[in-house]
C-alpha cells in the first residue's frame, strides 16, 4: 500500500507542479489527498466498531478503482490537471485513514509491552516501501510516462487489497445500547463514543498535550517535509522527477534508520520526553533545509530530519496508545 501511495503522490504531485507551475495548486492537490481527515473520527470509530480489516478492504478497493481510472485517462491521453484534482479528492476521502487503521490494528492485536516495537516495525515497513515507491515512481514516470507508471500503481493497490484479506478477523464489538440494531443505532452509538472519547482526551493531561503536539506537527512540519517537496525540487534545486524521488527517498531513509534503531533497542523509557526533544530537532533541521541550496546537502539534511521525525512519531504513537488504554473506543 505504501508503495502505491508514494508512487501516486510523487507522480501526481510532479504532474501538477509541471503542468500548472503553481505552488498554490500543488498545495491544493496535497490538501485534497487529505480530504478524508474531515471524516477521520468517524473512520476511527467505524474501525473500532466493524474491525480494521473490513474497513481497510473497502478503502483499498476504492483506491484500486480510482487508480485504474487515472491509468486509463493517462494511457488514452485524456488526462488533465482537473481530472487529477477530481480523483485526488475522491482518493483523499479514504486514503489518510489507511495509516490510522494500520495503527489501530496494532493496538487491537499487540500486547502493551510490545507496542513500541510493533509501531517501530510497522513504520520501518512503511518507510522502506516509501523509499522504494518514491524511487520507482520517479523512474517509471520519467521513463514510461504517467499512463504506464499508473499501471504499476494500480497493480500495487490491488496487491495490497489481496494481502488485506489475510488479516485476522476480529469479532465485532457488541453495541452496548439495547436499542434495535441498524444504521440509526450505529450512528447514535458512534457519536456517543466520539463524545466520550473527546471528554476522555480533555480530562487526560498527557493525552491532551500529545494531541496538541500532533496537531502542531501536522500543521507546520509535515507540509514542509512532504507536501512542498515537488516545489522545492523544481524551484530550488531545478531537478526533475528523479530528483524529487531522491528527496522523498532521503527523508524516508532517515525514517527507516530510526525505525530500525527503535525496534532494535526496544525504544526509549521516556517516550514523552523523546517526542518533545526529537520534534524540536526535526523543526531545527527543516529550518536548515529551507536555507540549503546544494542538492547533496539538502538530501543529507532531509535524511537527518527523517530520522528525528521517525523517533518522535514512533514515541508519540506508543504514548498515545498507552495513554488511551482503558478508554472508550471513541478515544
Amino acid at each position: 500500500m505504501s508503495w502505491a501511495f508514494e508512487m501516486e503522490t510523487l507522480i501526481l504531485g510532479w504532474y501538477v507542479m509541471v503542468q500548472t507551475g503553481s505552488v498554490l495548486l500543488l498545495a491544493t492537490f496535497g490538501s485534497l489527498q487529505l480530504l478524508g481527515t474531515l471524516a477521520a473520527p468517524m473512520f476511527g470509530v467505524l474501525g473500532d466498531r466493524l474491525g480494521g480489516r473490513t474497513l481497510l478492504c473497502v478503502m483499498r478497493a476504492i483506491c484500486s478503482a480510482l487508480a485504474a481510472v487515472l491509468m486509463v485517462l493517462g494511457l488514452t491521453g485524456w488526462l488533465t490537471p482537473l481530472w487529477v484534482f477530481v480523483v485526488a479528492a475522491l482518493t483523499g476521502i479514504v486514503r489518510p485513514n489507511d495509516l490510522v487503521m494500520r495503527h489501530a490494528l496494532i493496538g487491537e492485536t499487540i500486547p502493551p509491552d510490545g507496542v513500541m516495537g510493533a509501531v517501530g516495525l510497522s513504520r520501518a515497513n512503511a518507510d522502506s516501501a516509501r523509499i522504494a515507491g518514491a524511487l520507482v515512481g520517479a523512474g517509471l514516470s520519467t521513463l514510461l510516462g504517467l499512463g504506464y507508471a499508473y499501471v504499476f500503481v494500480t497493480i500495487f493497490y490491488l496487491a495490497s487489497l489481496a494481502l488485506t484479506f489475510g488479516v485476522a478477523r476480529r469479532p465485532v464489538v457488541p453495541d452496548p445500547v439495547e436499542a434495535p440494531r441498524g444504521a440509526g443505532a450505529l450512528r447514535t452509538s458512534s457519536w456517543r463514543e466520539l463524545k466520550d472519547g473527546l471528554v476522555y482526551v480533555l480530562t487526560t493531561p498527557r493525552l491532551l498535550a500529545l494531541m496538541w503536539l500532533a496537531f502542531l506537527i501536522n500543521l507546520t512540519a509535515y507540509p514542509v517535509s512532504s507536501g512542498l517537496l515537488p516545489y522545492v525540487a523544481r524551484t530550488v534545486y531545478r531537478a526533475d522527477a528523479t530528483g524529487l524521488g531522491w528527496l522523498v527517498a532521503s527523508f524516508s531513509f532517515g525514517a527507516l534508520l530510526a525505525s530500525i534503531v527503535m525496534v532494535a533497542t526496544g525504544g526509549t523509557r521516556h517516550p514523552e520526553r523523546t517526542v518533545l526533544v526529537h520534534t524540536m530537532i526535526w523543526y531545527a533541521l527543516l529550518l536548515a533545509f529551507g536555507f540549503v541550496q546544494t542538492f547533496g546537502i539538502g538530501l543529507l539534511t532531509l535524511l537527518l530530519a527523517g530520522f528525528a521525525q521517525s523517533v518522535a512519531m514512533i514515541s508519540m504513537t506508543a504514548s498515545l496508545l498507552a495513554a488511551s488504554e482503558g478508554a472508550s473506543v471513541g478515544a
Partner: protein
Amino acid sequence: MGVRTLAIYGMPVGLMASGALIELVGYLLTIGVYCAVGLVFTLLIGLKWRASLWERSPVAPPASAPQRV
C-alpha cells in the same frame, strides 16, 4: 481511536496555508515562519504539560528483560 485522528486536521490546513504564503512572501520566509511557530509551540506545550510529559516516571522495561537486583 476516533478523537486521536483529529490531530491530522492540521495537515491540509497547514499545506494550503503554506502554498498561499509562499506565493505571498516567498519560500524562505514561509519555511522560517512554519519552523519558528513549530519550535515555539512545542516548547510551550512542554512547559504547560511539564508534569505529564517531562516528569513522568520512566516506562518499566518488559517483563522478559533481565532485572537488576
